[in-house]
C-alpha cells in the first residue's frame, strides 16, 4: 500500500525526471526541447513519460540540429516561455556554441534587461561510460568563462531534483550539467518537505581538517571515496561539492582553506585553464597567508578524451586524489 511518507528512494535520473515534472506542473510556460526527449524519453530516459503527460507541444522532439534547438529556444524565451533544452551528449553542444555564447548569454545585456533569457540547457557530461568519442566530455569551463551564463553541476539524486527546478525558475540562462555516469548509479532518500539550499551555493559534504578537496558533478563521489580511504590512514579530508561553477560560491571554500591550508581540486575536465585554475587563483588571492601548500589540481590530462578502454586512466580516481593529498601534505 502507498504511504504518505514524503521520503522516496531515487536515482539521479529519477530525481531529475521528478524535478522536471514538478517544474512543468508549476508553470505552464515551461517546455522541454531536444533530440529524442519525447516518445523515447531521452537517450538516458531523463524525460521519461513527460510527453505522454504534458503533450507534444510542451515536450518537443526536435530535428537533429543543436544550434536549431538552442536558437529556436531563444525565440520561445523571447515569446515568454521557459524552455528547457536537452543536449544529448556534452560533445554535441558545439554546433550550438554560437547561439549559446553570442545570443543566449548576451541577450539580457544587449537589450538592457528587456529580454532576459530564462532558459536551461541540460548537458549530460563526464565520462566513464565506455562510450565512443564525443560522449564523455566536460566542457564546463567554456561556459563558465562566458559572462551572461550561469553554470551549475549536480552530483546526487536529491540535488538533481531541487537544482533542476531552481535552474528553471531562474530568470538567467543556466547551463545545467548532469554527471551521466551517476544517472542510474546510486540511490538517495529524497524528502520533498525539506527546503533546499539556494541554487548558487556550494556545500561542505564531508567535514575534515587536513586538506580541502573541491569537486563537482561526477568527482564528488570520487572525492568522498578518497576521504573515506584517507580517514583509514588517519588523514582528515574536507570535501566541498561546489555545485555552482558560475558564479562560484567562494565563501565556504575560503572558510575551509583558512582552516586546512591545503587544497586539492578535482574535475574530469582538462586541467589547463579549467575550473581548478580559476579556483587556485581565487584561493591564492584571498587566502595567500593561510596556504601551507600550492593549490593542486587533479583532472583529465591535456589530451583529447581517450579511447574508452583507457578512460579510467584519464579520469581522476581515488588514488590520484590521494596522491595529490600526499603531495599537498608533503609541502
Amino acid at each position: 500500500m502507498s504511504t504518505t511518507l514524503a521520503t522516496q528512494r531515487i536515482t539521479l535520473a529519477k530525481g531529475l525526471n521528478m524535478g522536471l515534472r514538478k517544474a512543468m506542473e508549476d508553470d505552464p510556460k515551461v517546455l522541454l526541447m531536444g533530440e529524442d526527449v519525447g516518445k523515447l524519453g531521452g537517450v538516458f530516459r531523463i524525460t521519461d513519460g513527460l510527453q505522454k503527460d504534458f503533450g507534444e507541444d510542451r515536450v518537443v522532439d526536435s530535428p537533429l540540429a543543436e544550434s536549431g534547438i538552442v536558437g529556436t529556444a531563444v525565440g520561445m524565451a523571447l515569446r515568454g516561455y521557459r524552455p528547457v533544452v536537452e543536449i544529448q551528449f556534452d560533445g554535441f553542444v558545439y554546433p550550438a556554441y554560437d547561439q549559446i555564447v553570442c545570443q543566449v548569454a548576451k541577450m539580457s545585456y544587449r537589450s538592457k534587461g528587456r529580454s532576459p533569457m530564462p532558459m536551461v540547457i541540460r548537458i549530460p557530461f563526464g565520462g566513464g561510460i565506455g562510450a565512443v568519442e564525443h560522449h564523455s566530455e566536460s566542457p564546463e569551463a567554456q561556459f563558465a568563462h562566458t559572462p551572461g551564463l550561469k553554470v551549475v553541476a549536480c552530483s546526487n539524486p536529491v540535488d538533481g531534483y531541487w537544482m533542476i527546478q531552481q535552474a528553471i525558475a531562474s530568470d538567467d540562462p543556466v547551463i545545467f550539467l548532469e554527471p551521466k555516469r551517476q544517472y542510474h548509479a546510486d540511490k538517495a532518500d529524497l524528502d520533498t518537505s525539506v527546503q533546499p539550499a539556494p541554487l548558487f551555493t556550494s556545500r561542505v559534504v564531508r567535514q575534515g581538517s587536513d586538506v580541502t578537496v573541491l569537486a563537482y558533478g561526477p568527482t564528488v563521489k570520487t572525492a568522498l571515496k578518497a576521504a573515506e580511504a584517507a580517514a583509514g590512514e588517519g588523514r582528515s579530508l574536507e570535501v566541498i561539492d561546489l555545485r555552482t561553477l558560475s558564479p562560484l560560491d567562494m565563501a565556504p571554500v575560503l572558510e575551509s582553506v583558512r582552516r586546512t591550508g591545503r587544497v586539492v581540486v578535482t574535475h574530469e575536465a582538462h586541467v589547463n585553464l579549467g575550473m581548478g585554475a580559476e579556483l587556485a587563483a581565487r584561493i591564492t588571492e584571498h587566502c595567500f597567508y593561510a596556504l601551507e601548500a600550492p593549490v593542486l589540481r587533479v583532472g583529465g590530462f591535456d589530451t583529447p578524451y581517450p579511447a574508452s578502454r583507457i578512460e579510467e586512466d584519464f579520469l581522476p580516481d581515488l588514488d590520484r586524489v590521494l596522491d595529490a593529498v600526499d603531495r599537498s601534505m608533503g609541502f
Partner: protein
Amino acid sequence: MSNQPIGETPGFGPDLVEVFGPSQRDGGPELVQLLTPEGERVHHPDFDRDFSADEVRGFYRDMVLTRRIDTESTALQRHGELGIWAQLLGQEAAQIGAGRALRPQDYVFPTYREHGVAWCRGVDPLKLLGLFRGVDHGSWDPAEHNFGLYTIVIGAQTLHATGYAMGMQRDGVVGTGDPDRDAAVVAHFGDGASSQGDVNEAFIFAASYNAPVVFFCQNNQWAISEPIERQSRIPLYQRALGFGFPGVRVDGNDVLATYTVMQAALQRARDGQGPTFVEAYTYRMGAHTTTDDPTRYRLSDDVEHWKLKDPIARVEVYLKRHGLADADFFAAITAEADALGVRLREGCKAMPDPQPMDMFEHVYAEETDELAAQRAGYAAYLASFEGAHS
C-alpha cells in the same frame, strides 16, 4: 576544355540558363513585378492587387525618408560621429514593402540593415544610431515595436524568429480566423547568410513545425565582396522547395510587388499554412558598410545598370505620370526629409556617452555577487584618482 582555376566562379553557364531561365542577373522570368523600372504598372497572375493613390504616396514618403536616414547616417560616419554604418541604399522598396505588409501583432527579427523596416515599426531612427555610434548594443524596446534588436551574427536571428513563431502557435494566435489576433513573424537575412547553418536549420525547424514565419531574404547580390554566385548556384528562392515550403522571387526594387507578395506570405503564415521563403531580388547600391570599398571587387557598370532600376525613381515616375501627386506633395516630402536629416544630425551629436559603470548593468537578470564585487572594485579604483567624480 576549360582551364579555369579551381574555385573560380564560373558564373551561370548555359546549363543553368537552360534550367532556370535566361538571366539570373536580371532576376529571371519568375520575378514578380508590378511596377517596372520605367514606372509602368504591370500585372501578375498570382500576386496582384489595386493600390490607392494614398498607399502609393505613403510608400514613396517611407522610401524617401528611409533613404534620408541612410544618407544622413553615412554622412555622420564620414564626420566621425558614427563608428560605422550599414548602408541600405537601393533596398528601400524591399524594406518598406516588407515593413508595411505587417500587422501590429506581427513580429520582426531584423539583421543590422533593416532601417526601413524599423521605420515602419515606429522605431525612432535616432535609436538605430546608438549601436553604430557605440553608445549601446540596441536601445529600443523590442516588445513596444514588435521589432527585435539588430543581430550582428548573420543568420542567428532566423532561428529566434522560428522559435518565436513556435511560441505563437502555442499561444493560439495562428489560424483562428480573427484578423486582429492571428500573427506571424518575419525573419530577415541576406544572400550571404543563406550559406549559414543557422538559416538552413531555421528552414528545417519552421517546415517541421509548420511555424508561422516568413523568411525574407534581401538578395542584394553582395556579401561584402563575395558575389551571390559564391553562395548559391541556383536562385535562392528555389531552395525553399527542398525544405518543403514555397519560395517566391520578387522584384525587391518594386515596393508594390514586395508589399503584395509579403502580404500574401504573411497571411499564409497567420492562417496556419506555414512558412514561405520570399527572395527580394535587389542590389546593394552602396558599400557593405562605411568601412568597405566596393571599387575593389565590382564593376561600376553594374552599379550604373542598377541605378536605372532605382526603387524610388520608378514610383515617382508613376505618381507623376498618373497625376497622383503634385509639386506640393514632392516639396513637402523633401522638406520632411530635410527636417529628419537635421534631427538625426543634431540628435546623434547630442547623444550622451554611456558611463563606464554602465558596463556592469544587465549582464544577468539576477546579478551575481562576484560581478557586484568587480563593479564595486572598479568604482573604488576610479574614485581613487585625484579629482575623481563620484
